[in-house]
């Protein structure tokens, strides 16, 4: 039996240890194993086989132990991270975090003239710049193990990816005739609103599950495990990712209207304010209120804008294009307002899901401890 070959095999098996342990001890362990093998070989072949078998027998338990220890250390690190409150960010970091809300607002503000709007109400020329900026921020975040400031960017990228690929794919599966029927004219208004509530709810719950799936996949990589432990410890981080997803969703609402840019800007500023208060608040419940408040006010601003735009267009065209009575015009307006409100209400509900889950698990722990 060749010692070098055995040492090479042993060193290969050492790669199963966690990265920190490997960096600290693998060279030494390889060296010690090589010496043991050399000593045993000088005695007899049987001694060598015995030594190698003993080493291989103990290795799995030792690897599992080291992995368990590494997980405990990560959990302890995450716990100590969350004991540091409020979150201390420099003004540059704060600005970088809020840029995801403030830059679209600035882009909308700079393009005051009602030109051809691209996706999400932004000027078509801004789309590639915005995409490059988002990708760059996310890549920087990934390289730095997704710190707190990167979470809204992860949310925005998730919702955009889902919108471009997942939802389109789902839409292709659904019969086109059903989609063409899915309009206010084809159904009575209450059925239309009910379908809107169901479809929007499905969409946001899917997005929530997608977010959980991405986090579960990230947990497979050691470098992102601190983030995943942090999320397990503080559910509001998940809500913060969803808060980022709300940016794109609210902007999509203003896509087809050109009257409500000031409302969209106000909405983004409310989201930014929510994120700012989130980052500055020490307690979880204050953070949750900051996000919910920012989102509720942002949704209210967008809904007002869309209702204003829709109302204006409906009232202007009531006598000619739509050829409907004043009463129907008012009903159309209510339907439109209902359609708009469905989306932020669902976002708010989904944003609260982590809090509900956390409350349920806390309650189950209490019952378990009481032996119920």
């Amino acid at each position: 039996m060749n010692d070098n070959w055995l040492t090479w095999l042993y060193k290969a098996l050492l790669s199963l240890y966690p990265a920190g342990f490997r960096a600290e001890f693998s060279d030494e362990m390889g060296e010690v194993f090589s010496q043991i093998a050399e000593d045993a070989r000088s005695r007899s072949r049987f001694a060598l086989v015995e030594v190698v078998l003993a080493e291989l027998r103990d290795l799995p338990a030792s690897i599992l132990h080291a992995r368990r220890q590494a997980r405990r250390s990560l959990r302890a690190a995450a716990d100590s991270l969350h004991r540091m409150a409020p979150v201390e960010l420099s003004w540059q970091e704060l600005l970088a975090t809020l840029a995801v809300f403030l830059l679209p607002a600035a882009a909308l503000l700079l393009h005051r003239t009602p030109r051809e709007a691209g996706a999400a109400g932004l000027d078509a020329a801004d789309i590639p710049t915005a995409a490059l900026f988002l990708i760059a921020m996310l890549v920087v975040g990934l390289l730095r193990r997704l710190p707190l400031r990167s979470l809204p960017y992860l949310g925005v990228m998730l919702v955009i990816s889902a919108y471009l690929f997942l939802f389109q794919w789902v839409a292709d599966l659904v019969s086109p005739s059903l989609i063409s029927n899915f309009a206010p004219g084809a159904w009575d208004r209450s059925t239309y609103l009910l379908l809107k509530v169901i479809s929007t709810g499905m969409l946001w719950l899917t997005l929530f599950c997608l977010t959980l799936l991405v986090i579960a996949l990230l947990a497979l990589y050691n470098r992102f495990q601190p983030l995943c432990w942090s999320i397990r410890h503080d559910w509001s981080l998940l809500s913060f990712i969803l808060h980022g997803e709300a940016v794109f969703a609210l902007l999509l609402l203003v896509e087809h209207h050109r009257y409500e840019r000031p409302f969209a800007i106000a909405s983004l500023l409310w989201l930014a304010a929510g994120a700012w208060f989130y980052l500055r608040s020490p307690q979880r419940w204050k953070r949750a209120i900051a996000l919910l408040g920012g989102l509720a006010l942002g949704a209210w601003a967008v809904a007002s804008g869309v209702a204003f735009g829709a109302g204006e267009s409906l009232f202007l065209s009531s006598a000619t294009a739509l050829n409907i009575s004043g009463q129907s015009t008012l009903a159309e307006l209510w339907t439109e307002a209902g359609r708009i409100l469905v989306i932020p209400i669902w976002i708010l509900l989904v944003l609260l899901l982590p809090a509900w889950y956390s409350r349920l698990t806390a309650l189950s722990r209490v019952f378990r401890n009481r032996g119920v």
Partner: protein
Amino acid sequence: MSTDTAIESQLPLTEATFFILLSLAPGPRHGYAIMKDVKSLSQERVVLSTGTLYSALKRMLEQDWIRRSNLAEKKTNGRVRKAYTLTGLGQAILQAEVQRLEGLVSAAQPRMLRDAA
């Protein structure tokens, strides 16, 4: 928590931990020397594998019972060999464990001698 209480909370030690600390009591040793010494001290009852030894060493380093000795680093075949040495806390824990074992033995001895007589 006082230092004595903190030390006592670590006891009893596992046999492997006890022999590793005992092996380091005279002075710094490298990994392979610890393995051989533990085997000899325990009269071949405790045979540490490399994985078990380094898991234990890592835990002891984290608990500040031992430290890597800079002075005792030697080079063999061009490679750095690291040595481990007991800290003050490690020595105190070893001493406390020895006293605990002595207490056990002194409690058992009169009874055993009486039974033998």
